[in-house]
């Protein structure tokens, strides 16, 4: 068990090093940063002096180590386009994305799990079939199209909800939140549904499949034979036993939510990190691109690691399998 954790952690560090290297390569080879900094008519000597000052004349590996040191101390350089520190820009954008992802995840859980339980219990019911069909169409619709349709219906035709931006936000220290104002909450509805819909259908299908599996088990029959109420059997026994895989998958999907926030944020002009990333690609703003990349990779690696360890802790069978296959 301990060896497994160490191995997994080492693997994660290796992945992060690889991502940091890619980010560093982006810095190195996408245009000469000196050209961005000096005046047009700077002489060759002036350029060389600046290069020396910034340490750009040093060997490759020294520069890479310096880059790593900068990353670890939170020094991500300056945006080519705006000229402000990247750390500051990202810190301003991060709350918007995290709030969106949080609400989308809640939406996915609180709609997906009950829908899955319902369709699992009433397999052949008309409502179940309807829900499954809708979920199939939902999976085939690309995220941005769902966003456009929601905007068309609820913002353009009905005029109930705003179609872009975060509404009014309240500044709490460094964190700007949209949770505390009515317009902020209203602005969250459409983007979080758009972002969470795919995960909702995924969780619903997963819970349904697990429920069907579990409901056939002997201990469910026994629980019914003991005369327990349907409610106690379905929720106390069946649902409880479906939750392990659901928690794992849901955890892994949070990474997906962060990645797909890029699309949702663009559709709804949501001032988050994903929107920032797309604009930085369009303007080839390398420092922002590589910082975003490193941050998202960090999120992914941490989530994967936690989920792996959780799995390990929750399911004792895995431990046995590992030790057997290791021999």
């Amino acid at each position, binding site marked *: 068990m301990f060896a497994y954790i160490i191995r997994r952690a080492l693997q994660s560090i290796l*992945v992060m090093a*690889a991502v940091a290297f*890619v980010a560093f390569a*982006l810095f190195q*080879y*996408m*245009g000469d940063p000196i050209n961005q900094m000096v005046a047009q008519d700077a002489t060759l000597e002036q350029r060389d002096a600046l290069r020396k000052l910034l340490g750009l004349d040093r060997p490759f590996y020294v520069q890479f180590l310096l880059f790593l040191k900068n990353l670890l101390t939170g020094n991500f350089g300056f945006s080519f386009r705006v000229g402000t520190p990247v750390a500051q820009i990202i810190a301003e954008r991060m709350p918007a994305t995290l709030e969106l992802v949080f609400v989308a995840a809640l939406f996915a859980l609180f709609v997906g799990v009950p829908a899955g339980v319902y369709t699992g219990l009433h397999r052949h019911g008309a409502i179940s079939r309807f829900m499954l069909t809708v979920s199939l*169409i939902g999976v*085939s*619709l*690309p*995220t*941005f*199209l769902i966003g*456009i*349709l929601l*905007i*068309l219906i609820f913002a*353009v035709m009905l005029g109930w909800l705003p*179609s872009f931006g975060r509404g009014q936000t309240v500044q709490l220290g460094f964190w700007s939140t949209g949770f505390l104002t009515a317009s902020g909450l209203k602005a969250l509805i459409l983007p979080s549904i758009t972002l969470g819909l795919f995960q909702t259908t995924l969780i619903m299908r997963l819970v349904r499949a697990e429920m069907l599996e579990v409901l056939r088990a002997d201990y469910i029959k026994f629980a019914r034979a003991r005369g327990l109420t349907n409610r106690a059997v379905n929720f106390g026994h069946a649902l409880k036993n479906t939750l392990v895989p659901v928690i794992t998958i849901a955890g892994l999907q949070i*990474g*997906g939510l962060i*990645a*797909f926030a*890029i*699309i949702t944020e*663009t*559709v709804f002009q949501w001032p988050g990190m994903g929107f920032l*990333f*797309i604009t*930085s*690609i*369009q303007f*080839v703003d*390398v420092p922002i*691109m590589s910082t975003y*990349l490193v941050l*998202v*990779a960090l999120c*992914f*690696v941490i989530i*994967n690691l936690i989920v792996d360890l959780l799995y390990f802790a929750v399911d004792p069978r895995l431990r046995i399998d590992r030790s057997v296959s290791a021999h």
Partner: protein
Amino acid sequence: MPVWHHLRDLVRRFLASDVFYSFRRSPTVMIAFGLTLLFMVAAALAPWIVPHNTYEVASLNLMDAFLPPAWVEGGKLTYLLGTDDQGRDVFSTIVLGARVSLLVGFASVFLALTMGVALGLIAGYVGGITDSIIMRVADVKLSFPAILIVLLIDGVARGLLPRDLHDKAAVYVIILAIGLSTWIQYARTVRGLTLVEKNKEYVQAARVIGLHPILIMFRHVLPNVMGPVLVIGTLGLGIAVLTESTLSFLGVGVPPTEPSLGTLIRIGNNFLFSGEWWMAIFPGLFLVILVLSVNLLGDWLRDALNPKLR
């Protein structure tokens, strides 16, 4: 005429096969197949069959801009689904756009398939350290969503190429990006199957008579692992078309001069608020129908080729 006989036998065998039987039994699959075929033929012949050639700037008439679909008041019958902001016929741009989307889809699937199958075969057949390296790379890539990798590759290309050149090369950049980010699935599947096939008698026999490993891999093992690859390829086509349209919608894909379906939706999205809904909704509808048909075909193929499910 031996060739003719051979062909007739093949058709007969196909008509009597399980796959064709399950195809004939499912109306949904037949409709999906028909629609996919229709899309492909229309896309292939697009420049010759569209009612208005929207690539020719001279034929555009700005007086006809923003016309609604023909059945809405103010619409003209020659512009069945309406016109866009530059007076381009929406139906024609959709057919031409589907051509670009499918081109990117097929090309990127071809790239991913070739790369993934080759690497999977080598990893599975050779084993050892080669296998470890290929599969570790796959593991790392698999822990990130494909869309991020595609965006990254596209961003790098943008930085390396000058702007005017990038617009011309955009389609190829996207094909490369999608191909490079989706080969893993093929590689994993093929590797797993190769590990099983490797120990069968026919491979051992081929080895005993001294055939070259490359010949064994591609001549003998490959045909036996192609079934699942075909399924992944079909489903991959739908995903590739969706990824391309997402990129184009985000504004980092195909440029507006030769728009794909995603680019059209992006353009149409700008006019959603002024009430010109048809510019975004119709390309979106065609995109969904195309992807849904391809996905249904892929699902069916998976079930039909899997003997365990019969």
